[in-house]
Every structure is written in structure tokens, then in C-alpha cells.
């Protein structure tokens, strides 16, 4: 489908027969022999019932988890074979991760949270905070830079988490239910931001439960019980893009 790229460039993400099995008592097949390819600049949504393995899939692509079988390639590089140091680099530079549960540092302010990935890339403090403020502006939180997560609403935290995922200007953005905790208006704003990123050439992998949100992507991967149930192309005419 969208995976066949004419140029010699490797796809942004490629999963080849990936399984992730948890063996806690009864084995749980969180992902079972999943193969999928995300072309560069593509926009893919993942849908499926709770527990179907959506977050597991994102964690594998984001180098947070390792598969029990199969290979995961990011930008043509087999990340399952990398050292922990190299995986840290992929996490910090290649992908931007928006977590289902935000995962912000409780003692850092919004701008410090957003700037955190740059700390580990050795970016100077002034530049880091400048970039963080720019991004907070972009997600509409320019007036909340000095707030701690506990002083922000759920939707605001979600947007801080998105700003943090984007601060390193990653080629691949992984978003796990970025609109799950926000009202429709904020949700639209977040989705508009993702549309912009897509338009700018970023590869986007988005998990959602909402059909309307998923329809903004180019295609939808449907998961059930750890297996791919189907991959649907979205009728682009409806989105007018």
C-alpha cells in the first residue's frame, strides 16, 4: 500500500513479524506476528479495543520496549539490535512520544518539561528554554510556561506533553490517544497541530478510539487481540486534504 516507496530511501518505520509476549502466569500475546510499514511522511492511525496492543505497538516503535520476536526498524535501522545507549539516542532524537498518561516531571515547570529532551542532547539552557517557549506558544500555552504539571488542567498537560514530543523536531511522532483527555475544541487544536506536522513532512503514528480522529489520517490500522485485523485507506476526499 503506502509502504512501497519508489526512491531508495528506507521507510520511516518497519515492523516485521513482531510479537510481544508477556509471560506472567498465563502468557499474554500483547502483539502477535504483526508486520506493518510506515512510509516517510505518512500519517497512520491505530484503532482497536482496549487491551488490543496499541500502546504496545507504539512502545516498540519508540524504543521503550523490545519485541519477543521479529524486528522493528526505525529509519532503516534495526532498533532491536542496538545498544542501550543507541536506543536512548533514537528515543531522544528520532521519535517524539506523546504518552497516553502524559508522563511529565512533577517538579519541573511546563517549559522545563518541554525542554527536558534537549538537556540530554547537550543543548544550552537559554536555547532550550527559548525553543520550549516557542512550542508552548504553538500549543496555546504561552502563558503557562512557569506552571508545574500539578498546576495545569488535564488538557493543558496533554498539550505540554505534545510540545515536549515536538521539541527535538523528530522525524517520527508517536501519539498515544493525544485527544483522550481533552474537550472537542482542544482536541481539534491538537489534531490541527498534527495535520501541520504531517504537512511539514513528519511521519505520524496516532492511537485513538475515535473514528472521527482516525479519519484525519491517511490510513487506519485496526488491531484486535494483538493481531492486525485490517488496514483501511481513508477516503481523502472527506478530509479535503
Amino acid at each position: 500500500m503506502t509502504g512501497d516507496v519508489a526512491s531508495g530511501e528506507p521507510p520511516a518505520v518497519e515492523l516485521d513479524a513482531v510479537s510481544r509476549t508477556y509471560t506472567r502466569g498465563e502468557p499474554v500475546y500483547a502483539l502477535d506476528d504483526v508486520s506493518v510499514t510506515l512510509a516517510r511522511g505518512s500519517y497512520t492511525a491505530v484503532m482497536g479495543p482496549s487491551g488490543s496492543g496499541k500502546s504496545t505497538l507504539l512502545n516498540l516503535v519508540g524504543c521503550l520496549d523490545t519485541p519477543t520476536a521479529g524486528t522493528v526498524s526505525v529509519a532503516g535501522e534495526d532498533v532491536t539490535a542496538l545498544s542501550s545507549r543507541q536506543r536512548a539516542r533514537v528515543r531522544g532524537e528520532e521519535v517524539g512520544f506523546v504518552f497516553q498518561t502524559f508522563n511529565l516531571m512533577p517538579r519541573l515547570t511546563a517549559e522545563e518539561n518541554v525542554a527536558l529532551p534537549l538537556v540530554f542532547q547537550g543543548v544550552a539552557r537559554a536555547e532550550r528554554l527559548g525553543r520550549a517557549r516557542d512550542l508552548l506558544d504553538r500549543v496555546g500555552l504561552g502563558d503557562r510556561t512557569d506552571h508545574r504539571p500539578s498546576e495545569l488542567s488535564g488538557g493543558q498537560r496533554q498539550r505540554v506533553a505534545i510540545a515536549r514530543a515536538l521539541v527535538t523536531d523528530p522525524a517520527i511522532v508517536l501519539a498515544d490517544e493525544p485527544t483522550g483527555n481533552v474537550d472537542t475544541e482542544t482536541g481539534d487544536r491538537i489534531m490541527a497541530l498534527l495535520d501541520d506536522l504531517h504537512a511539514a513532512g513528519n511521519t505520524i503514528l496516532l492511537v485513538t478510539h475515535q473514528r472521527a480522529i482516525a479519519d484525519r489520517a491517511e490510513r487506519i490500522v485496526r488491531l484486535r487481540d494483538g493481531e492486525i485485523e485490517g488496514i483501511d485507506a481513508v477516503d481523502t476526499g472527506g478530509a479535503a486534504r
Partner: protein
Amino acid sequence: MNLAESLRLAVRSIRGHKLRAALTALGIVIGIAAVITFVTLGASVKAEVVGQFDDSPANRVFLVASPDDDGGPPAALSQPVFTEYDVGRIEDIEGVDRVVPRGTIATSALSHGGETVARDQVTATTPALFESVTFRAGGPFADAESGDACPAEMVVTPSAAALFPGNLSVGDRVSVTQRGNRTRNVTVVGILDGDAGLNPLAGFGSQPRFYLPSCAYDTVVTSPTTGTRQNVYPQVTVVAENPGDTAAVQDRVQDYLDAESDAAQLAPESYAVSAQTNDDIVQRIETVVDRLTQFVTGIAVISLLVGAIGIANIMLVSVRERTKEIGIMKAVGATNRDVLQLFLVEALLLGVGGALLGVPVGVAGGWIAVTYAELPLTLPLGWVGAAIGIGLLVGVVSGLYPAWSAARVDPIDALRYE
């Protein structure tokens, strides 16, 4: 991640738990403070004692008979073994200017003008002791040539004179009650200018001192060499003619003592008869003080160890508590090394912070101890510097395992950690 960055983050997390951090650092504060207090006290005691020896002339050789082990107070335990015969022989040794024997006469009381003062001993010596010593009034007693009558004279220190109402002055008559209730009537002929002892064997402390001529001395023994009854002294000071020859004189005197002296034959089993210079005595005292300091400091070091365990413990708790934060940092690109560095720097800050606080506390403690003991303060500056190093070391050692376990945290497990 560079060091400044980890420092900033570490300071932040310490600020987040101020009380806990303060209590953790307190262990190190107490440890470092205790070490510095005891080392300061030791250094001050040493400086004081050694300083007194620096004042005494370099051309002295002191003869004592003391238990045959290293260390130990050299003079206090000295046995009376040096006979008049020995004193005479040593006077004839090449390079010897004079020989001053010293012993104590047991007394029960001294009285003057109807006033009686209880006193358990006075010093017997020769006028040679008073050479180059200043008198406030009068002068030394006469030398007793053998055969002559014993001069009925006494020299006292100012505080000794002050024991009697209206003070003793030159010309006053004092009766000394010796062992066996024998009374010796003497005239005060000199009052010294200070209360300190006049050689290391007598101790330097300020106290009332009474001096009688050696002929008043009453400890006698049969000289093994001559077979006659003679005075026998526990301490003898040999003064060399020339300070540069002191070592040579010391060797010759030691040779005599070893070979043919009465002292060697009279000394009890396991006692050594030795000729020591100022330096020898200083060294022995230093050894004693050092050993004592080391012992007490060792105890203080144990409290430092307890402090280190405290840091390790708190850091482990902190790693546990911040598992989720570690997961977040790793998820956004922190390497294992970054995490290790972060926690190590935090432990290091606690260690160094504790040490920095401990130094002034320790110096204050040392100052109080030294003031209480009425010694001049000597600061062991090397130790103050070392304290900072020790703080660093304690931080690294106690933070190593917690930091290592933080670095090993698996990001996905950590993010799920609640």
C-alpha cells in the same frame, strides 16, 4: 548531559526534599565535625607540649630509668637508680659541662611563723639547676661540698611563696617536716621568677615548687661499685659544654650507663636506663599523643561511616520513589550514563554539603575543647582540606550502588510504575 546540567537537576531534587536531605547530610556533618574536633584537640595538645620543649636548651641530655617499652611518659615512672658515684663519673665524661641530679624528698608539712602548709614532697637538686635561670629575689643555694655541713637553704617559686600568708620572702625561716618526723630548718635564699618546672623531667606545669640542696635528699642505696651508702636519684640532667656536641655526649653517657654504671645494676628487671635528648623525649610524647589522637579519630571515622550508610539508604529510597521520573527521562533520551551521573551527583552534593558544614562545626568543637583544656588552638589545616575530599569520597561510595540501580531501570517498567 554535562556536569552543570546534572548539578542543576540534583540541586532541584534535593530542594524537593529539604528536611530529608538535611537529616541525611547531618550524618556526614557529625562525622566530619567529630574527626576535625579530635584532630584539632590532638594537634593542639601536641603543639603545646612540643612548644615547651622548644624553649628548653638543646644541649641537655636527660637520664631516666623507665619501663622497657616504647612510648609511655618518660620521667614520671623513672626509678631511682643514678647514684652519686654515677653522677661523679658522668661529670668526668668528655664534653660534659655539668650534671644535675634531681629527686624528690617526701615531706608531710612546711611551716613558717606558726603557719603550717601540708605538702607531700619537695625537690632535691644541685645549684647547677639554677644556672641561667632568673630569680625574682635572692639566688641559688650554696653548693654542698662533701664533708661540709649541708646548707640550710631553700629556693621557692612565687606560688610556693604565696602559700604562706604574707608571702615568703628571702631570709624567712621555714621548717620542713621530712619522713620520720625529722624537721629541717632552712632559710629561703631565692625566689624564682616563674612556677614552671626547670626541665622536661619535672614537667612544665605551673605549680608551687620548693627546692632543697641535694644533701637534704634522703633516698640512699649501697652503690654496687663502691660498696658505700649513697644518694640515688631517679632523674639526672647532663648539660653538654657545646650544643653541637649533644649527640656525641649522649652516646658517651649511654655507653657509660650500659657498661659500668651503678644505674644499670640497680635498675629493676625490664627497666631501661637511657640517655635522651629533647628531641627523643619530644618524639616519644608525639608518639603517645598521635596514638591517642588516632584512636579517638578512629571512633569519629565510624560515625562518618554511619553517615555514609545514611546517604546510601536515602539514595536508594530516592531511586525507588523516582522510578517514574527515571522512566520519563529515559523515554525522552537520557542514557544510562546520564541517569547514573544524575544520582551520583546528588549523593556527592549531600556528602560534600555535609562536609562543608561539618568543617566549621568541627573547628568550633575543637576550639571549645581546646579552650576548655586551656591550650592554644592549633588548626590542622590539612585535615580541613581533607574533609572536603572525604565528603566527596563518601558521596561517591555511598551513591554508587543507588545510582547504578537507577541507571539500570527499564524505561517501560518505570513508566508503568505507580
